[in-house]
């Protein structure tokens, strides 16, 4: 079997950590090869070595059977290796065509010409069904479109080996479907594809083989069809994993929170994106708001937590009208919030973990006394949360939030919000981007809150998560509550009809 890429005995060390330890990766022509591992397992490092961003300490790389010396991304490009990074490398204020030609521009007598490039972009776009508009401004196109631009950028440079780093992390389900089709098409035309992921479903759908990394070591390389998801998960995490956390029957009691025909105005689209929506959340219950991303869910939570003002309706917490409360007052009145964008709304990334743990109540005793912060108390508080919630850090409480992995950042936020002991816990996409191990632990914590009699409101775009957590499901479509469901009496396909707007039900 012909190998396009062979990475042999690759070892790469960073100060204090062996990111890659003697790893062997062989990729065949026309193959989709998945690289599976938890955050921090060394997947991205390995691909960065292949793409010339890092040099391996030991080992060698062969491309088409010949030993290759890849010192920088230009060398990689010359060898036909292209990479789509997790954070796209696009200039927002350039057109698609300008972005694609950048670094490989055509000129005529010293002046840029785009005619040939635009033709080529159009024909590649047709060939692989990428649907890329060369004249669009990057800032105006969707994330999915941007990703297709990145793929086209590699093809424009005649890449034969395509590396994609967590390509589905920021895509909607439809965009993921499209991407899967595109990758299959590329592979069938003879391109080799390596994609980094921690999502088992994606591997099952398109990958031929999968290499599993854990803690910088290669656990195995297997044919996808000869293995089960359970097997893969265990190899990835190193222990047995429960996909769907067991939960006891809910003991639902009094309503804790009620939204009474609320509307939220979005200044970006200049209209109400939550329209006249009512619901309540009872103690001992998890209410999950399901729906396709962008149907007003984010704004619903902004409206409840006070990040955006309501344009209509009233909010009640424990029978008290909190509509006029500002963000801090709502938080003190008993709302805990695990925000959708954990790095923007959840943490101050350049603060240490201990200060992040007191963001909402640094001004209260015992964290301050006579206007001065009480460092001992703050430190003890953080250390207690780190222990209780198994937050992994490099140096404990003084660790910089920025330096922590996504999963541990999320655990830290969860710890802070739960510890405040509020009656209502709101979590938006609590497990987005996390690997199965972290998902399991966060789901367990959320269910424990329900069992402790808290009211829990979850926003999720992931139907697996909806069914794992929900005691009651509310579907949101175009800013409206289009139906409430008992998870035991509905199915994914039924919810899908409501989520896509093809059915709706009047709610009582």
């Amino acid at each position, binding site marked *: 079997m012909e190998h396009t890429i062979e990475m042999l005995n690759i070892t790469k060390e960073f100060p204090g950590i062996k990111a890659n330890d003697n790893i062997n990766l062989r990729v065949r022509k026309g193959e989709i090869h998945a690289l599976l591992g938890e955050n921090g397992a060394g997947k991205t490092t390995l691909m960065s070595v292949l793409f010339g961003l890092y040099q391996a300490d030991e080992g060698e790389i062969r491309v088409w059977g010949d030993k290759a010396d890849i010192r920088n991304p230009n060398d990689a490009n010359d060898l036909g290796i292209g990479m789509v990074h997790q954070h796209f490398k696009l*200039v927002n204020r350039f057109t698609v065509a300008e972005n694609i030609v*950048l*670094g490989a521009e055509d000129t005529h007598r010293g002046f840029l010409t785009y005619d040939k490039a635009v033709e080529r972009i159009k024909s590649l776009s047709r060939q692989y069904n990428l649907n890329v508009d060369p004249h669009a401004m990057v800032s105006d196109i969707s994330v999915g479109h941007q990703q297709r631009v990145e793929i086209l950028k590699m093809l424009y440079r005649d890449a034969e080996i395509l590396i994609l780093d967590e390509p589905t992390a920021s895509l909607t389900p439809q965009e993921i479907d499209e991407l899967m089709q595109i990758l299959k098409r590329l592979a069938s035309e003879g391109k080799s594809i390596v994609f980094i992921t921690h999502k088992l479903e994606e591997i099952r759908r398109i990958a031929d083989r999968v290499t599993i990394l854990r803690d910088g070591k290669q656990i195995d390389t297997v044919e996808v069809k000869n293995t089960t998801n359970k097997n893969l998960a265990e190899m990835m995490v190193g222990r047995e994993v429960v996909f769907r956390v067991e939960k006891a029957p809910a003991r639902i009691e009094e309503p804790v929170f009620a939204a009474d025909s609320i509307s939220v105005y979005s200044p970006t689209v200049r209209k109400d994106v939550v329209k006249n929506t009512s619901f309540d959340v009872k103690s001992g219950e998890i209410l999950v708001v399901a729906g396709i991303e962008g149907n007003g869910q984010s704004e619903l939570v902004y409206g409840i937590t006070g990040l955006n003002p309501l344009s209509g309706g009233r909010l009640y917490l424990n029978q008290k009208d909190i509509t006029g409360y500002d963000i801090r007052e709502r938080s003190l009145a008993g709302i805990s919030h695990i925000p959708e964008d954990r790095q923007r709304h959840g943490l101050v990334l350049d603060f240490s973990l201990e200060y992040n743990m007191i963001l909402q109540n640094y001004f209260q005793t015992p964290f301050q006394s006579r206007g001065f912060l009480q460092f001992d108390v703050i430190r003890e508080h953080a250390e207690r949360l780190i222990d209780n919630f198994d937050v992994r850090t490099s140096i404990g409480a003084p660790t910089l939030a920025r330096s922590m992995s996504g999963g541990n950042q999320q655990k830290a936020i969860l710890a802070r919000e739960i510890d405040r002991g509020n009656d209502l816990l709101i979590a938006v996409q609590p497990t987005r981007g996390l690997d199965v191990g972290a998902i399991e632990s966060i789901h367990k914590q959320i269910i424990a809150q329900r069992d402790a009699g808290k009211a829990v409101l979850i926003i999720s775009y992931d139907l697996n998560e909806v069914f794992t957590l929900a005691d009651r499901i509310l579907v949101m479509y175009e800013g409206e509550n289009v139906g409430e469901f008992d998870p035991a009496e509905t199915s994914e396909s039924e919810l899908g009809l409501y989520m896509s707007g093809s059915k709706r039900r009047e709610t009582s």
Partner: protein
Amino acid sequence: MIADIFNEIVSVGAYVIPVMIVLLVVSLGGLFSERSGVINIALEGIMVMGGFVGAMMLYFLLYTVELPIQLAVFFALITGALVGMGFSFFHAFASVSMQSNQIISATALNLFAGAVGVFVARTVYGYRRINVDESYRMDVPFLSDIPVLGELLFQDAFLSTFIGIIILITVIILLYKTRFGLRLRSCGENPHAADSVGVDVGRMRYAGVLISGLLAGLGGVFFVVAFQNRFESDVRGFGFLALALMISGQWRPMRIFFISILFALMRVVAARADSIMELRGLEIEPEILRILPYVMTLVVLALTSKRSKAPEAIGEPYDISKR
């Protein structure tokens, strides 16, 4: 009547255009640096350095070598441009190679330039002023015969006017029509994107800062020749005004061009406040006219900065390890 208005325009234009060209050229310099991703508030200091050494060179060529005026100016311009470029190298080195804070590094240049100007001038000439008071205006052959435009632009004009216009056209072409321009702009917007396709971000940023130094140094000499007729330890805040103009012009050459006319007009009104009063018999305090350009700067900035389109990666040292 029409002839009156026309004469009026020409007579105002004679004062406005040279000022406008100084602001335009320095502003375009700032644009190069900032479009490559490096904030350059050192324009003032670079202008001072360029103007100072340019004035020394001019003094030497005029009174020691005794070259014809325009030829002496020409060499003084080249000297000023090269000095500006050399001086801006320090800013490039600090902010690109050493990844230091770009505001601090530029402030250092601003402080240094004023001090060194005074010190050297006093040491060499005994006083801080370098006097090069000559008539630098000239008629351009052929072009000055064109009606209206020729009279406005090419009669009794400074060499700087043509150089300025050529620079404007060159900048637009360079920035938008060449490979260099595309790559330079990409470094100011998203250096990680540029780097990932093999553009050498460091080199492009050096180029941006050095070109800005070249233009600001040139602007410094323009200032000495076409505005002050001497060098006197500073450039009257023209460098900072050029910076404000660049921001109001949203980092785009043509907008900067139009706003430079506006700013120059106000600057001239302020400088000639007294004589305008007398001529028109207006009952306004001259102080009001004098503060006009500064008030307008604030107003224009306040109005334009809200939709300001600064390059996205401006001021961020490019750190390879974050890619």
